[in-house]
Structures are given as structure tokens and as C-alpha cells.
């Protein structure tokens, strides 16, 4: 394995943090302590952790909507308590409480989002173009699922990124499902990565349950991008243990997903896989691993306290009118 122990520890720590924050968001939604909806990570968080952990603060990133990008963003250093505050409609929310679930952390190269799957791709070209023109080695990381590659905008973005050799990493976090639709029914090839061939772009397929494998593959892609060699499509094969978003039925087409299938997916637990590796190569002891969990839970607790103590955002309509256009 080519990763330093320091980076492995960072990846493992962020993985554990992502897991606990995911449980926190899911729990709060179920209890009515979160506005709107939540698309739980539940099994699907190693690729995002890897992506966020290896980027610099000034690199551009579009996080995945799964787990609302929490794994990606906390790994990049974003203060997640402000994102939780956004989810609770507070003044301290990252969007001033105006969205319930959009991200906006411009100082981290994260400029907001849209709820339409595939809506990231046009902007990614612009981030890539800006990164190239800035000429300081910045890259742009695009994190979306298999379903987003059904959308024409993905193809325009890959075409233009490949044409212009833009420093973009297309990370496809393929969990095999777009809401109730199996990828086999929606995509003609087994791998999304095979699309890269048509754009003369390198690609890699990686185990999306293994955070270290994801990081290695993404590091290669980032290295190429920083060296001016253009975009890469990295497909991480991951899993989704739960429904698309909490409260909707968990279907395979129009029938419930089977217990057997879900049990099989649970076999591939990213936390267990990473923990075994950390212990096997003696990067961390069991005691140190327990401490990582304790610290993550304490961080979750502090984030909740921050969000709950913040005032509800209740601007006047005059204040809102004045906020539509920039000066």
C-alpha cells in the first residue's frame, strides 16, 4: 500500500467522523429535528471521505448529494456544524438558513448546489477552466452517483474537460441504484468507467468500500490533473444500505429490496474494512481506534449544541428582497 500512516490515520478518522455524522443527521430527521429531507450515506461514504481528504483547501469540489456531501466536506475541513445549522433553519447555517440542505463554503472551493441530478457538471467545466487559467495547480473534484451519468450534462462536461485537458476528477460513486432503479436497467455497460474511452480519458475502477483504495486511485487522478495532463474518471463501486431518502420506500423497481440482498451489502462495511486494515498494519491500536470514535461522537455532540443554540433565521421580507442581487 502506497499511503503514509499519517494519511491513513486521516482517512480512517474522517471515515469514522462521516459515519457518526451520518447517523446523527438520520436520527435527527427521524425525530423531526431536521428540516426537509435527508439522503443517508449508510454504507456509501468511503469515496467521499477519500475525495475530501486528499484535496487542498483551495481545490474546487462538488460533493455528492448522498449524506448531503457530509463525508466529502468534513474531510476537506469544512465546519460541519454550520451545515447542521443550515439543516435546522438557523442564522448560523452555511446559507443563512435559506435552503435547509444546500452547501456553500466558498472559502473551501464549494460554491453551492442544486437539487437536480447532473446539475453539477456544467459548473465543473467552469471550475476546471478557472483552475487551469489560475495556473497554480488547483484541481476540481466532481462527486456524483451512477445515476448522474445518465444525464446529458455529464457527457458535455467530460467532452469539454477532455478537449481542454482540464484538471477535473470525475468521481462516480456507483452504488448501483438511482432511487428505485437498478443501474443494469438504466445503463448499457457494466461499468460507468467505460464511458471514459469515448472521451480518450483515463479511468479507474476501485472498491468504494475501501477508503484507502479510493484514496490511492484518486491521488493518481489528482496528480495527473495537477500536472496538466487532464481529467480522469474514477468509478468507486459502493453500496446503499438504506432507502434513497429517509421515509421513502426502499424498492427494487416496484418491489421491496430483499433481505438477502441487503444482508450481502452489509458484508461490505467500510468501517469494518478500514478498521481491520488499521489494526493489521498496526497504524492504530484498538485503544486509539476507540478514541477516534469517542472524539467523533463528541464532535457530533458539539455540532448539535451549536446548531440547537443558534437562533432561527427569520428575516423580514424586506431583508430577503435586498439579498437577491449582489451590489
Amino acid at each position, binding site marked *: 500500500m502506497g499511503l503514509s500512516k499519517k494519511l491513513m490515520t486521516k482517512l480512517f478518522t474522517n471515515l469514522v467522523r462521516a459515519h457518526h455524522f451520518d447517523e446523527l443527521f438520520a436520527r435527527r430527521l427521524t425525530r423531526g429535528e431536521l428540516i426537509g429531507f435527508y439522503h443517508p450515506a449508510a454504507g456509501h461514504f468511503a469515496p467521499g471521505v477519500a475525495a475530501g481528504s486528499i484535496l487542498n483547501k483551495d481545490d474546487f469540489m462538488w460533493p455528492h448529494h448522498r449524506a448531503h456531501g457530509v463525508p466529502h466536506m468534513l474531510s476537506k475541513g469544512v465546519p460541519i456544524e454550520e451545515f447542521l445549522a443550515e439543516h435546522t433553519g438557523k442564522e448560523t447555517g452555511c*446559507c443563512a438558513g435559506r435552503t435547509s440542505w444546500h452547501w*456553500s463554503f466558498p472559502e473551501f472551493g464549494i460554491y*453551492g448546489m442544486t437539487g437536480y441530478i447532473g446539475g453539477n457538471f*456544467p*459548473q465543473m467545466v*467552469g471550475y476546471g*477552466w478557472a483552475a487551469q*487559467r489560475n495556473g497554480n495547480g488547483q484541481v476540481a473534484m466532481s462527486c456524483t452517483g451512477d445515476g448522474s451519468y445518465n444525464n446529458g450534462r455529464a457527457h458535455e462536461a467530460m467532452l469539454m474537460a477532455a478537449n481542454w485537458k482540464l484538471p477535473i476528477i470525475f468521481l462516480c460513486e456507483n452504488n448501483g441504484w438511482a432511487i428505485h432503479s437498478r443501474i443494469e436497467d438504466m445503463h448499457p455497460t457494466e461499468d460507468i468507467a467505460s464511458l471514459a474511452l469515448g472521451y480518450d480519458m483515463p479511468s479507474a475502477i476501485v472498491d468504494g468500500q475501501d477508503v484507502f483504495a479510493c484514496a490511492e486511485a484518486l491521488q493518481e487522478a489528482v496528480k495527473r490533473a495537477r500536472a496538466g495532463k487532464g481529467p480522469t474518471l474514477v468509478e468507486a463501486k459502493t453500496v446503499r444500505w438504506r432507502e434513497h431518502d429517509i421515509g421513502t420506500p426502499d424498492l427494487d423497481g416496484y418491489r421491496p429490496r430483499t433481505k438477502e440482498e441487503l444482508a450481502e451489502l452489509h458484508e461490505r462495511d467500510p468501517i469494518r474494512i478500514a478498521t481491520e486494515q488499521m489494526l493489521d498494519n498496526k497504524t492504530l491500536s484498538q485503544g486509539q481506534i476507540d478514541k477516534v470514535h469517542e472524539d467523533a461522537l463528541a464532535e457530533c455532540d458539539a455540532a448539535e449544541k451549536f446548531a440547537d443554540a443558534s437562533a432561527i433565521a427569520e428575516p423580514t421580507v424586506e431583508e430577503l428582497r435586498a439579498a437577491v442581487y449582489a451590489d
Partner: protein
Amino acid sequence: MVEMTYVDAIKSAITEEMRADDSVFMVGQDIRGAIYPHTKGLVDEFGEDRIVDTPMSEFGMFGTGFGAALAGYRPIVDFMFGSCCMVAGETLMVQLGQQYFLHGSQTPVPMVLMGACGTGKRLANDHAYIPRGEILHRPGLKYVFPSTPADAKGLMASAIRDNNPVFFFYHYDLLMDRGEVPEGQYFVPLGQSEVKREGSDITVLANGLMYKHAMQVAEQLDGEISVEVIDPRSFEPFDSETLMKSLEKTNHLIIVDEDHARCGFAAEVMAQVFEQGFDLLDAPVERLCIENLPIPGGYMEPTVVPTPEKIEAAIRRVVA
């Protein structure tokens, strides 16, 4: 002042602003080779880095500007034909206008979205229609449309300097119209209508090719009916004060809008006049718009589009 064409005035503003600010760049299809003359020679002066040709990928082309604007650049996205912007409809009509506001008013989106459009060339709906009502309906977007060479220069320069997405559409039946244009940097502030011709009997609010028609009719009626012509120039923000002030004098209004009547700009202005200036009116307001059907090309185009003859007839009806 120097005399130049409407299209050269657009180019003059782009050139001045690109010289003044290195973060301004243009992205479009076949703009290096200048399919329209407003980009002719720009690539020679500013290089391929700043005059960027894209594949026929409107989402990607628009996204180049959108993403770069968020990252600190000031893009001009050239859709060639104005209505082609609808190819990138979702990103442009939903994401663009909400971007700044929804994300806590933190990161401005300074960009210009331009395209030539309008009737007169008999090209039929897809090339001829002016995207207007649907864009004005979306909060967070600005919208200008010049009628004269001077305004073409001044509005483009202001649009480039604005820190918001500004649609700059221009009329291809006016491209070669000539007029006096200020030299050097010149700005027409967004949100200022202009009284282009003073009169006392009736106000005609008209823009673009319709402005040209209205001016022609006003001259024809000179000595018989005194027609005041106001050019809105900027549709969002829209300056209704200039219009209300005019109505205090004329008490009669016709709105000529090169868009469909239904839910369009003319309907919006009528509503504003009823809300703010009902007591100023001596007669019902008339609006002359494009019929509510897809614009046909060929020889039937004038049948569905406002013409000087229709404008004259409306003026006579309203002041009668």
C-alpha cells in the same frame, strides 16, 4: 462621439472592458471566427485564452461561464442566437438566478449572457423569438436590450461590470444601424428608461425593432398627434418612474413588445400602471405584442408581429 453601427458598438464595449479587466473573457461557439461581427478580431487582440470557442455543448459552454464566475472571473457567454440559451434551460433558468440568494448572498455571479434575436429576418420561431417573459419571470436575473448603437455600447459595458447574471439580448435586424456613440469607456446604468422622443398626447413604450417602428410612426404623425417614445432599455431592473412621469403629461399609453402578450413584459407594465398610475389614464392601455402562436417565418411574419401600420392604428384608437 463617433458614428458606428449597433454591432460595432457592442464590440467596442467588449473590447474596452477586456482591456480594462483581465478577468473578463468570452466563451461561445465560433466566436473566434466571428460568425457575427461583434467578435471580429477579438481573438487577435486577446488570445485564445480569453476568446474561447466551445463544442456545441450549451450546458458545458454556459457552465464554463457559470463556474468561472463563481471562481472569480467575469465571463461573457455568447449564445449566438438568443433563443439557443434555452438549450441550457434548467441550469440557466433555475440554478443561475437562485445561486447567489439561496447560498446566503456570499458569492456573486458576475456574468453576461448574450445572443442575437428578433423578427424581421423571417427565420421562424426558433431563431426569431426573443426570450423575455420567461426570463423576467425568474428572480435573480437582470435583463437589458439596446435599441441604439450608443445604448448597445453603454448597456454592454454596464452588464460586464455588474456583479449579477445579466442577459444582454440584441436585435439582428438592427445590427447595421448607425448612430453616434461616445468614445472610450461609456456606461448606461441598468434600470434607467430613456425618453427618446418627447411628446404630449400619448406615450409609446417600445424597445429594439419596435422602438425603431415607434420612432418612425411618431415622426409620421408629427403635427397631428404628439407622440412620446420611451425605451425601457433595461427590463430588470425596470424603471417605471420615467413611465409614470410621462403618463402625468400624456395620459395615454401603448406598450409595444416583441414578445407574446400572455404573461409577458407588456402585461407586467400594464399591471404596474394600474397599480401605480390608474388615475393618470384617460383611456385604456393597449399592448401590441406578437400573437400567441409560434412565430411563423416567410411572408406571413408581419401578420403576427407588431408593424408600423399596427402601431399607428393603435395610437389613433387610444387617443381618439
